[in-house]
């Protein structure tokens, strides 16, 4: 149980934040927030030992038992690794944000509440064993990401980026939900573990491919794979701590997590292997190629993240190959899953530190435009060192952790060309080739990032007097950079503690305990193809980097209208315009038309059903005789209606209408319905009073239109409505298909509800739901009227949302 509670701790802490922010002004709210992820890291660290031995921990809590939906926290190697990343990087990011966000100027409570919300959601994603709760947390990460990107909501770009990311990731999430539901239909369970246990049978199910594609759409949109990556560069409008946290270290890896988690289910499929490794590789190349085009520091990092996510994705695709060969644990294919997880850890360390450095540069110089920057090395030596460590690791150079995982990546890609199934023997050669080209570009943008910011001679004058960042801001990136170097020297410690337990979650059929994963990472493994490839990367990379200014112009050749962003914009605009045009077809702003729509629809539906079902009957059996008062009332009623219709002045019409209402109330009285009569009388009174109030604002009746023209369509509609009500009443009276429910109410009103007046007991007990929704609607209507009258915009007011 406690294990499940840990997921919700950040969310619970978020409840306290507004008070801390409001009442303790002197301390930066971030310090209180920092305690949350820091505690969680400490808690999750205690699990490491047991999980590394292959143990798993579960805790379950019912959510909606009637639908078999529950929260299940399932901590195995993969979940624990992600949980540690989320809370660990989370702590560093919160620490960094304390210095990044000014406590006077920023809306800190908003920021930290969104961040904590995200933390809970993300922990939920990686620990949920239940597909529906996984989906719930998944969308919650999208929503908190939306809020964080739009944190500076007065900026156009923030709102645009927030909306774009939300549209794409939530859209993908909906596809994924479809995939989940198909999976649950196939396996008759929502539990991922139970589905994995049934994996061999699921492959032959007719929905299998559908489920696969839909789940992948969710994973690809979230993890910014081609062609859905376009939201990630726009998400860089978020404050830099958010970019470092959500958009490089954690949230964008949710898709990776999902693919890794579901690999045992889907890996037997050829489509899975091709899609995951192919799209991953394409994304890797695409991201690295376009990273060099960027001029914004965070833009470079965004594209680099896209590319690195593609790299991990392609490794996961390659790891699925191990399911198709016999004795996979002895072949070279076993490396892919290990490399994927290992690179995921490495990426979180070096990319996190690079984002923080980009934030520092932005914070200290006031710009992130790489064309204006340069020569910062002498003024910001510490930042430069961290940036250099991160970039060299990203480029795949020793002695940094990126080198190790990059080598393993090349090994895995080289292995693919030897795979014999699924046409890999013909097309497989593309994998190492594309991987190599992408590595060259990765090298180029890594150098581009660090040298153009820190070393190149500055051309423009910077607006502020630049100096090194405060030490508080540097702590987090320095810690991450230390990891980058340390991991290079102790890769197998990391491997045993984190990577191997996670690998068995991806390949559970291959190994039964982490100890069986016989992979040792070494920095030096002789003169083999991978090493020569790396040397080639460095040589060509350096060459391209030296000449970057010459060939960067080539990017301008891509016509703007062919870009994916343009396609997205066009789609959104088209939907907007199209939907508006469609609405304008029938929304005429005239109450009369709307009433005509409603009334004609109701009468067509009701009369149509009556005719279609042959339900119309008329029988006067058992009806009471018509008495004198009823006739009198009827005459009054009809007179009232006619008066209302032909009245020359509005006041006469109101009085006529009032008399209709009171007469109906009298009808209730003589038919023994005191509750209805009472309500009708009071409603009538109040609406007359309301009319009198509104009366003042209405134009004189005669001025609107001298003589109302007779209109055929209106006559048809009104006659139809009248006929409908009459036919319905007669038919309902004439045939009793079911025994009346009033008998049931009569018998149970005292025993079940402890009351005597059925009408009121129905309102508050039997049909309490109806009443609850009705008063909610009433409240909304009241708010609507209030808003329309009190808050209407005058033309003079500025409707531009930007400050």
């Amino acid at each position, binding site marked *: 149980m406690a294990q499940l509670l840990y997921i919700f701790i950040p969310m619970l802490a978020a409840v306290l934040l507004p008070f801390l922010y409001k009442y303790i002004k002197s301390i930066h709210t971030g310090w209180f927030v920092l305690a949350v992820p820091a505690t969680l890291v400490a808690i999750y660290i205690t699990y490491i030992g047991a999980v590394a031995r292959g143990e798993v921990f579960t805790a379950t809590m019912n959510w909606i038992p009637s639908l078999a939906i529950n929260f299940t926290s399932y901590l195995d190697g993969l979940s624990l690794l992600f949980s540690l990343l989320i809370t660990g990087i989370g702590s560093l990011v919160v620490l960094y944000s304390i210095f990044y966000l000014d406590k006077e100027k920023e809306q800190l409570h908003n920021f930290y509440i969104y961040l904590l919300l995200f933390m809970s959601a993300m922990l939920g994603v990686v620990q949920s064993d239940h597909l529906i709760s996984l989906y719930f947390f998944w969308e919650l990460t999208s929503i908190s990401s939306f809020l964080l990107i739009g944190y500076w909501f007065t900026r156009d770009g923030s709102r645009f980026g927030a909306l774009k990311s939300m549209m794409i990731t939530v859209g993908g999430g909906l596809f994924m939900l479809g995939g989940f539901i198909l999976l649950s239909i196939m396996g008759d369970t929502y539990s991922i573990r139970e589905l994995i246990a049934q994996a061999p049978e699921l492959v032959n199910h007719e929905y299998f491919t559908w489920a696969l594609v839909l789940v992948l759409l969710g994973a690809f949109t979230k993890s910014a794979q081609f062609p859905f990556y376009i939201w990630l560069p726009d998400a860089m409008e978020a404050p830099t701590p958010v970019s470092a946290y959500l958009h490089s270290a954690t949230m964008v890896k949710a898709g990776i997590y999902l693919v890794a988690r579901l690999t045992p289910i889907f890996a037997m499929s050829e489509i899975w292997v091709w899609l995951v490794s192919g799209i991953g590789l394409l994304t890797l190349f695409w991201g690295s190629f376009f990273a060099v085009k960027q001029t914004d520091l965070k833009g470079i990092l965004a594209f680099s993240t896209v590319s690195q996510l593609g790299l991990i994705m392609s490794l996961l695709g390659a790891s699925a190959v191990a399911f198709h060969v016999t004795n996979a644990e002895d072949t070279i294919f076993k490396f892919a899953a290990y490399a994927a997880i290992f690179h995921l850890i490495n990426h979180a360390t070096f990319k996190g530190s690079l984002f923080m450095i980009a934030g520092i540069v932005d914070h200290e110089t006031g710009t992130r435009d790489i064309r204006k920057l340069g020569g910062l090395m002498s003024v910001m030596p510490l930042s430069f060192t961290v940036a250099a460590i991160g970039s060299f690791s990203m480029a795949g150079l020793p002695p940094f952790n990126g080198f190790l995982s990059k080598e393993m990546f090349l090994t895995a890609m080289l292995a693919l060309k030897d795979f014999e199934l699924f046409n890999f023997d013909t097309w497989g050669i593309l994998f190492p080739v594309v991987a190599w080209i992408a590595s060259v570009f990765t090298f180029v943008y890594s150098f581009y990032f660090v040298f153009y910011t820190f070393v190149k001679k500055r051309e423009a004058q910077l607006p502020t007097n630049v100096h090194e960042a405060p030490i508080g801001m540097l702590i987090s990136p320095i810690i991450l950079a230390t990891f980058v170097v340390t991991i290079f020297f102790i890769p197998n410690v990391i491997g045993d503690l984190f990577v191997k337990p996670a690998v068995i979650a991806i390949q559970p059929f291959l190994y039964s305990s982490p100890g069986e994963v016989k992979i040792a990472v070494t920095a030096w493994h002789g003169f083999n193809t991978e090493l020569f490839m790396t040397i080639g990367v460095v040589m060509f990379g350096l060459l391209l980097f030296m000449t970057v200014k010459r060939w960067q112009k080539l990017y301008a050749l891509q016509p703007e209208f062919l870009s994916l962003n343009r396609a997205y914009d066009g789609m959104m605009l088209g939907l907007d315009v199209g939907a508006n045009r469609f609405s304008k077809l029938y929304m005429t702003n005239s109450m009369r038309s709307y009433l005509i729509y409603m009334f004609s629809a109701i009468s067509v539906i009701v009369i149509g059903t009556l005719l279609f079902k042959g339900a119309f009957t008329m029988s006067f059996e058992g009806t009471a005789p018509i008495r004198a008062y009823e006739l009198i009332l009827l005459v009054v009623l009809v007179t009232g209606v006619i008066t209302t219709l032909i009245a020359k002045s509005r006041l006469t019409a109101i009085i006529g209408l009032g008399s209709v209402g009171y007469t109906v109330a009298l009808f209730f009285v003589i038919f023994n319905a005191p*509750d209805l009569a009472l*309500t009708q009388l009071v409603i009538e009174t109040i609406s007359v*009073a*309301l009319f009198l109030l509104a009366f003042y604002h209405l134009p004189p009746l005669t001025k609107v239109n001298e003589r109302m023209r007779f209109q055929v369509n209106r006559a048809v509609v009104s006659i139809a409505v009248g006929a409908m009500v009459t036919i319905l009443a007669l038919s309902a009276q004439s045939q009793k298909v079911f025994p009346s429910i009033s008998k049931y109410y009569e018998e149970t009103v005292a025993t079940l*509800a402890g009351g005597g*007046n059925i009408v009121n007991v129905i309102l*508050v007990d039997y049909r309490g739901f109806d009443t*609850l929704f009705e008063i909610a609607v*009433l409240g909304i209507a009241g708010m609507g009227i209030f808003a329309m*009258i009190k808050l209407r915009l005058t033309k003079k007011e500025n409707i531009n949302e930007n400050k």
Partner: protein
Amino acid sequence: MKTNDVIIQFTAKIVFFIIFFFAIHIFLAGHYTPGGGFVGGLLASSAIVLLVLAFDINTVRTIIPVTYTTLTACGLIIALATASFPMLLGDPFFTHYFDYFTLPLIGKTSLHTAMLFDTGVFLVVVGVTMTIIQTIGEDE
């Protein structure tokens, strides 16, 4: 033209209380005899409307200094809280608890959680009706 509204003002002062207490009575009696939160709320608002007609909106606002939008919100919260309270005890949403008690002065009576729910309905009805009348009436 100056209107002479002495009579209506004088009457309203007395009739207001009659209607208002009748509203309370109808609201409380609802479970056994005709009435309930909805009618009670409407009657209470009609009592206030009578004051508005006899005096004017601003005077009434000083007599009854209630923000009706807040009143609506309170009513909704009370209704929703009553409906969800059983969930804390592990019962389904909207479970109705009632029992019979013997209270001093009043004697044997019954208490229902439906009553609380009806209080919410009452407040929402008063709140919304008065919000509408007040906003339309104030709009110049």
